[in-house]
């Protein structure tokens, strides 16, 4: 109410309406903090997708199992970089590991990250590829041979018994990995959800909403990565795998969307003193990124597309196109989810009487170009990883299965 009273006075300050404390005019958490939960979510989502094949034996997802693991690793390597870039002084970051404060969620995250990267992802990938690495270390020539020899870590036993052990331990790691992935992204939500002074963030549902949106974004990412890599390599895609991915994507989106709606209704019903400024923010500052991009373009349209594409009687080409477009829209939607959480939480004044505006830098460490570089970097790393550890090798072995699946589908 009050902002509408004094807003005419503040026309000289662009982007400001109502009453805003002097230290709230400029946002402190920029686009880099938007990218950080986005990337972490992709890691957790891709890994959870991989675990579906491993633990729950969803055989249709076999073609993307290794690709998912490599994707998770590629994004995991970049995930902490936005934080380091934002905080500055990356040379001090190791101190967080050496003298961690147990009361700091941020400090504890370092260990969650290290655990997830080293114990879960790297170990699982190593055990899964071990047999192939040993074979490559024998087949390849020159420096490459020695590189693979190094990767074997001296374990060259590829007897049936040893390989069976690899599979067994890989499964155990995946089982440990699922709660770890939940912890990894649940933590990111926790960081926001536990800030009780901010009514836009402070909600126990936030970690759960983050987790499901992570799963959504991870599945959509794998759909895109699988389709693009198959197209680039001129190989046939498994329609069964794509259908399964689309199904899981749809189910995860339904849960995610319901949870977010629940959170929204809960806030409306609670109707705390912040509700009027939050409503004002949604209907003005966040209208495009929340209502249009996140809800309509990023959730409702792809959900309709997936229902139509998965359960409608359509030719495979059209189906693939619908899946692809839906997955791209989902990525846009999830990115705006992160944007709306991080930026939205800073657009309204803690006086609950005014709104400010976020102006994205173009250059500089917090700018658009750095953000784009951080989003593109994992794709580059993934390309390198697929050169070192080709995930398609196994696909060659299952290529027959895929063809068999495709022929049985068409029949």
């Amino acid at each position, binding site marked *: *109410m009050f902002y509408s*009273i004094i807003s005419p*006075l503040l026309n000289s300050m662009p982007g400001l309406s109502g009453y805003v404390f002097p230290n709230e005019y400029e946002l402190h958490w920029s686009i880099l903090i938007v990218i950080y939960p986005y990337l972490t979510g992709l890691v957790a989502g891709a890994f959870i997708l991989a675990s579906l094949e491993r633990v729950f034996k969803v055989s249709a997802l076999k073609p993307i199992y290794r690709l998912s693991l490599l994707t998770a690793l590629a994004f995991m390597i970049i995930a902490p970089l936005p934080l380091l870039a934002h905080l500055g002084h990356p040379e001090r970051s190791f*101190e967080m590991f050496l003298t961690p404060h147990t009361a700091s969620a941020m400090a504890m995250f370092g260990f969650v990250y290290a655990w997830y990267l080293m114990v879960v992802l790297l*170990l699982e990938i190593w055990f899964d590829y071990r047999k192939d690495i040993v074979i490559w270390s024998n087949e390849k020539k020159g420096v490459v041979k020695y590189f693979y020899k190094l990767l074997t870590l001296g*374990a060259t036993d590829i007897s049936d018994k040893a390989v069976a*052990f690899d599979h067994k331990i890989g499964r155990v790691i995946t089982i440990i990995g699922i709660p770890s992935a939940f912890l990894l992204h649940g933590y990111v939500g926790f960081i926001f959800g536990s800030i009780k002074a901010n009514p836009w963030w402070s909600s126990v549902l936030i970690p759960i909403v983050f987790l499901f949106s992570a799963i959504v974004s991870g599945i959509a990412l794998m759909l895109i990565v699988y389709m693009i890599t198959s197209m680039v390599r001129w190989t046939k895609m498994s329609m069964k795998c794509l259908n399964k991915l689309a199904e899981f994507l749809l189910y995860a989106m339904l849960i995610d969307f319901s949870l977010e709606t629940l959170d929204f209704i809960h806030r409306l019903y609670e109707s705390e003193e912040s509700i009027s400024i939050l409503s004002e923010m949604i209907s003005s500052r966040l209208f495009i990124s929340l209502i249009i991009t996140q809800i309509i373009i990023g959730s409702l349209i792809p959900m309709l597309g997936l229902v139509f594409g998965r359960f409608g009687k359509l030719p495979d080409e059209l189906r693939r196109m619908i899946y692809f477009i839906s997955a791209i829209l989902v990525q846009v939607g999830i990115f705006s989810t992160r944007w709306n959480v991080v930026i939205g939480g800073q657009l309204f004044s803690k006086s609950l009487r005014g709104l400010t505006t976020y102006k994205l830098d173009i250059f500089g460490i917090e700018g658009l170009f750095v953000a784009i570089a951080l989003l593109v970097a994992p794709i580059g790393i993934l390309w390198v990883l697929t050169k070192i550890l080709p995930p398609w090798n196994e696909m060659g072995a299952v290529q027959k299965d895929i063809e068999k699946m495709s022929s049985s589908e068409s029949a």
Partner: protein
Amino acid sequence: MSKIPQQVIPIIIILMVVVGAFIAARNIFVPESFGEQGHFRTEAIQENMDLEQVYAGADACYDCHDDIVETKSGSYHKGVACEVCHGPALQHIDAPDEFTPRAPRERGYCPLCHGYNPSRPSGFPQIIAERHNPGKACMSCHNPHNPLLPHAPEECAACHRDIASVKILSHHATLPCTQCHTIEKGHKSSPKFTKAHKPTDNSTCEYCHNKGSNGNKLAPKINAEEHSDRYLCWDCHYPHYPEAY
């Protein structure tokens, strides 16, 4: 030993190396006195104590400048320490003749606290420096050690700038504050002890806005008996900017 699968051995070795490196790094990089008294380096306290002191503290000034202290202790600036305006003065205590603390006389200095800023509380004296006797030094009218106003403010806006800035945009712009507020004589000279009165019932607004009332004939009219008689007018309408609601 033979029971441990071959591939587990390098993992165990790497794990041991990582844990060993972590322990070694902690031993090398964590300062010895870290954690003795809390989550910080105990030596840091001594290091801060060893820093060169520049501030003397207000008590030190009182020893010589008791006349100024006496003036200041009864004034609105009694809570403002000497070194806030005069700067670090330990050197002056040590060698009074060789070092003289600064005495800011430029016009930009006082508005650091007294320049208009909407986040400052209403009633705190605030000026718009460009409009407040431009070019004149603050000290030519105000004594900083006892900053009483040279004369009682002519306008309420001198202190209630935030309200005045809103009111001037509204249809109530031409109304004097006294139209609604009763201002007792002492309010302008000692506002903390003599408060201005605010209306307590709807009759103030109804004087102009009730149907058939004697006040301003052009003011929008309501029928006070039918128009939300359970509420006070300012529950819905902000009197200083009534168009907003």
